């Protein structure tokens, strides 16, 4: 329930600024880069619609009201019509370009989300085991949501407001470059101050994202571990852990909002200073700098207008920080290189049973102690092989290497004399199949779960593989036959039944090498018999390597590999190994003693 180490959540990356995240983010999100022209267009049209107003005020005052000839309504009317047209045109343009931008941004986020999801699946099982599921889940859900929220709320501000700011200064300078410089100088400190607060805010937001991940992991455990919590009366403990991370999240959120509140008034304060300065200097210097009253009023108007974009930027800064923090976490995950790199263009494995040749294999997970030490073995095509040994002896790791769930850190593994690393992804998937110990099924029907064995398999093919494995009577006993829903993770079926589904899946694929991880453990005899029969059928036309939990599996195997401390210490047929009086024979003796 506490947080274990999380190498994949991006927290170990040195703290970076939001700008650095933006730069990196744009690199991995090509959909966003191509939209800059639309962005400029959008900003310009909105700015034009906004800035024409002070110009109208100036012209109306100078030429329509306060001019030498007194009031001239015609000048004002003409001006008003022109401005009206400009305002409406600008609105239409901004409407159109904003649509384009939203389309593009949503496309980008959907793309990034899907790529991140794929990346999660590309990471090795070892990486998955080292990371909390809630953390991985948060990357494609809440972190991506933060980014999406930003795309609809904050992003437009970052495009439009700077344009309005620049445009305001340009119009201001057109009236009086001196006043423009004064206003500019007054606003100058805004940037370093915003940057100062923003850096802290960014850190606070990262803290918030982390607390969200932790909270989600906590919720995930409370939900998936519901049965244990109830039967051991651990409700209070589970609740207190959750309440604690809930409170932590609340604190983190308040901190980010505190910064946010401060940030949003910086523009206001300096806007007031600028307004006062423009007023005082403009009034006293009006004759020397040749400024008309309408122009000075327009300048004052523009200076007041200036603080609005700053305020609006402040409003959206929070969302932006949150998005940047989420983006940063996603980028951190994408930076984690998958330790198995797939080749699409590799060689194909031959059809039919595959031979296995392990040549001096070593394996260690990311710089920890080796789990396999110098394993060499040759397994002929079509043989049935049992791997025995204690937990931690390396037998499961060896099985994982056969399916390329990981690559050996040293040495080479050959299937049908082809190095496994140079076999194409498609060919390997078709020819090598694993029935994992954890019989995870998807929350759908038995039929659909079997169909996962081969993409596009027909109902007839599914029925045929069930018949071939002699599982027809088992299916008939299910409440709705093949259409029985298996529940979340397949938990409506027993472990053995889940393995039957997994075997039917494997039969559908018809691989040349089948790897069974403790396939016959924890099963009632009836299902066990069905399993043995199914495995027997499967073994008749392919190489089968079983991580054996029961010695009965070993007895019937052609070859037994006995693992100990990462090495193969004995190998051979059951009878030979029993006679040899080594480790296997001891295991066997103990087992016999237990049953009789």
């Amino acid at each position, binding site marked *: *329930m506490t947080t274990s180490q999380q190498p994949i959540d991006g927290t170990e990356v040195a703290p970076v600024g939001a700008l650095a995240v933006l730069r990196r983010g744009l690199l991995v999100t090509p959909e966003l880069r191509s939209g800059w022209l639309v962005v400029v267009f959008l900003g310009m049209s909105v700015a034009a619609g906004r800035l024409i107003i002070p110009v*109208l005020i100036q012209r109306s005052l100078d030429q*329509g*009201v306060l001019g030498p000839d007194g009031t001239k309504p015609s000048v*004002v*009317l003409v001006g008003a019509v022109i401005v009206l047209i400009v*305002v409406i045109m600008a609105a239409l343009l901004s*409407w159109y370009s904003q*649509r384009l931008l939203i389309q593009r941004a949503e496309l980008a*986020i*959907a793309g990034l989300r899907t790529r991140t*999801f794929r990346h999660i*699946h*590309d990471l090795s*099982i070892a990486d998955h*085991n080292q990371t909390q*599921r809630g953390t*991985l889940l948060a990357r494609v*859900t809440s972190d991506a*949501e933060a980014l999406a929220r930003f795309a*609809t709320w904050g992003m437009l501000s970052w495009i439009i407001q700077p344009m309005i700011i620049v445009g305001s200064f340009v119009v201001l300078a057109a009236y009086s470059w001196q006043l423009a410089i004064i206003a500019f100088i007054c606003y100058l400190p805004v940037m370093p101050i915003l940057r100062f607060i923003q850096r802290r805010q960014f850190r606070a937001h990262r803290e918030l994202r982390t607390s969200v991940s932790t909270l989600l*992991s906590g*919720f*995930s*455990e*409370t*939900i998936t571990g*519901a*049965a*244990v*919590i109830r*039967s051991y*009366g651990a409700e209070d*403990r589970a609740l207190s852990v959750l309440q604690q991370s809930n409170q932590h999240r*609340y604190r983190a959120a*308040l901190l980010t909002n505190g910064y946010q509140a*401060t940030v*949003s*008034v910086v523009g*206001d*304060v300096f806007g007031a200073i600028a307004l006062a300065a423009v*007023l*005082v200097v403009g*009034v006293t210097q*009006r004759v020397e700098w040749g400024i008309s*009253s309408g122009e000075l*009023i327009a300048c004052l108007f523009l200076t*007041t207008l200036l603080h609005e974009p700053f305020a609006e930027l402040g409003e959206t800064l929070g969302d932006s920080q949150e998005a940047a923090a989420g983006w940063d976490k996603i980028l951190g995950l994408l930076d984690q290189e998958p330790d198995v790199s797939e080749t699409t263009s590799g060689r194909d494995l031959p059809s039919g049973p595959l031979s296995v040749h392990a040549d001096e294999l070593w394996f260690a997970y990311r710089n920890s102690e080796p789990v396999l030490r110098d394993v060499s073995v040759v397994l002929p095509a079509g043989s049935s092989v049992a791997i025995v040994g204690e*937990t931690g002896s390396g037998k499961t790791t060896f099985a994982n290497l056969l399916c390329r769930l990981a690559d050996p850190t040293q040495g080479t593994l050959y299937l049908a004399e082809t190095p496994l690393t140079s076999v194409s992804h498609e060919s390997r998937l078709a020819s090598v*199949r694993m029935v994992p110990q*954890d019989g995870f*099924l998807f*929350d759908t029907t038995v039929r659909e779960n079997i169909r996962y064995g081969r993409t596009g398999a027909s109902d007839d093919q599914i029925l045929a593989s069930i018949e071939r494995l002699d599982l027809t009577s088992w299916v008939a006993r299910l409440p709705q036959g093949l259409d029985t829903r298996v529940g*979340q993770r397949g938990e409506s079926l027993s*472990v053995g039944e889940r393995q039957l589904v997994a075997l039917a*899946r494997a039969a559908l694929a018809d691989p040349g090498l089948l790897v069974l991880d403790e396939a016959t453990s924890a*099963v*009632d*005899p009836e299902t066990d018999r069905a399993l043995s029969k199914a495995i027997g059928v499967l073994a008749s036309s392919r190489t089968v390597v079983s991580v054996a939990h029961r010695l009965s599996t070993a007895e019937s195997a052609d070859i037994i590999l006995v693992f100990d401390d990462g090495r193969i210490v004995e190998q051979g047929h059951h009878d030979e190994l029993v006679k040899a009086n080594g480790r296997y024979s001891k295991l066997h003796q103990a087992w016999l003693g237990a*049953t009789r």
Partner: protein
Amino acid sequence: MQDRSTLRRGLRHVGSMVAGHPLPFTFAVTGAAVFAAGTVGATVVLGRITDDVVIKSFETGVDPTSDALLGAVAAIAAIAVLRAAGVVTRRFFAAMTSERVQRGFRGDLATHYVRLPMSWHQGTPAGELLAHADSDTTVASHVLHPLPFSVGVTLLVFFSAISLIIVDPPLALVGFLIFPAMGVLNRIYSRKIEDPAARVQASVGWVSTIAHESIDGALVVKTLGRTEAEVERFGEAVGQLRSDRVEVGFLRAGFDAALGALPSIGIVFVIVVGVYRVDAGAVTPGELVQVASLFTVLAFPMRVFGFFLESLPPSLVAHSRIRKVLDLPLAEPPSAGISPAAGPLGVTIDDVSFSYPDGFNVLSNIDVVIAPGEVLAVVGSSGAGKSTLATLIAGLVPVTTGQILLGETVLNNIDPQERSTALAYVFQEPYLFADTIRANIELNREVSASELSRALETAQASDFISEMPSGVDTVVGERGVTLSGGQRQRVALTRALVRRPRLIVLDDATSAVDTVVEQRILDRLRSDFEATMVIVAQRLSTIRLADRVLFLRDGKVAGLDSHASLLSNDHYARLVSAYEEAEA
């Protein structure tokens, strides 16, 4: 009129969320009111400065006095301070209100997730429950961020109207045309956005559900080479979410553009009318500037008001999704103690039947009395109802008809805390939390070192644990992935034993353990623990150990006797010989 009812429902919903946190909300609204006053004040100051300082000095050709300038600067400063204070107060306390509401939702959800019955969990996808705790709470309370500002906007419009009427009623008339136009625009927008916004929320939940399942089953996805198919499945959900979002975005683009243009159009009319009014001497140029700037400062607050109206429908949807969980009644846990208060617990299963909600019948009319201290093996082929019976005895799932007594007390009436102390149920597939082995064993109680080592010894877990880098303080991965199946089972068994239960239910709880080790475990259990034991068994060695065997067939009792006597039953003999075969 659906719009009105949505608005009314929305306001009621917002009211109910705010009601729990009146203090921060009051501060936030006060801040917003101060801001509104300051904003209108700023336009008045700008108008006065135009007339009294700028135009005066141009007309007279005399520089304004330093007093006049100082006064102007002081007014600008005062307004700025007022507005800044208003903004900071509003923002911080609005956030506090919203975050407190979120914390409240999450806390209540946590309580419900922990307290709702097991049967509810089995029928609800985990991804959806996670989405409630994550995005639904955020969305439900997000509306509270713009809320105080929106209250402020109402005041702003009110102050603006007053200041307009003071300046010039005919000019005010122009303003009064613009305000309703903005209001109507907001209403049209919030009505149009309602359905798409609800769809976005539903899509978010769907994306979360798929991601959760897929990441959970990562190993199977990998070994089946289903990555592409899973990415496609996920991509489809994401694509749906994207198109829903784009629809919302398009609506917003129209709204933004229209709402941005409206104040500008208003200013144009103000200036046209205003010029005539200035000419007529009814309005000064400064007042004209004041009204014009009033319209420009209105644009942004009106947008925020739009945000508020816009986030109202999704907030309602998200809230109703949360409510679906929170409105489920949490039954007051029963409070009866168990009698007798000590010693091994007998179990009386009295005419118990169980069927699933869909009518599928698992157990019918089971009648068994288990004596205190007895070891009962439950045997039957798969689907016979063994595990179901075990979960019924453990009180995890309620019986459909009949009743179960622990000792002399009806199981349903027993205080769950008391039940979990007296009874230990060990699952075939143990669930371990991503925590230390010790924490997984202790869960919610203090366990003495001697108690812990005794339980570890019995469960045959001390050897492999002592070989681990930090012993019992080693952290196991999520669901205990860093341990083997047999090791997980032994840790789970230890967890049961440290509680010194009076009744132990083992649901195939040692199936992944080596036969030799299993034998040792069962021997130690019999000799060291004074407890009644119900063992769902699949190994002959275990069955032989039991005092009596309950033989289940198709959900009915097909025999209840010693192993030797039951052998005369054909079905039983056949099943047991199958076990023998499987083991040989």
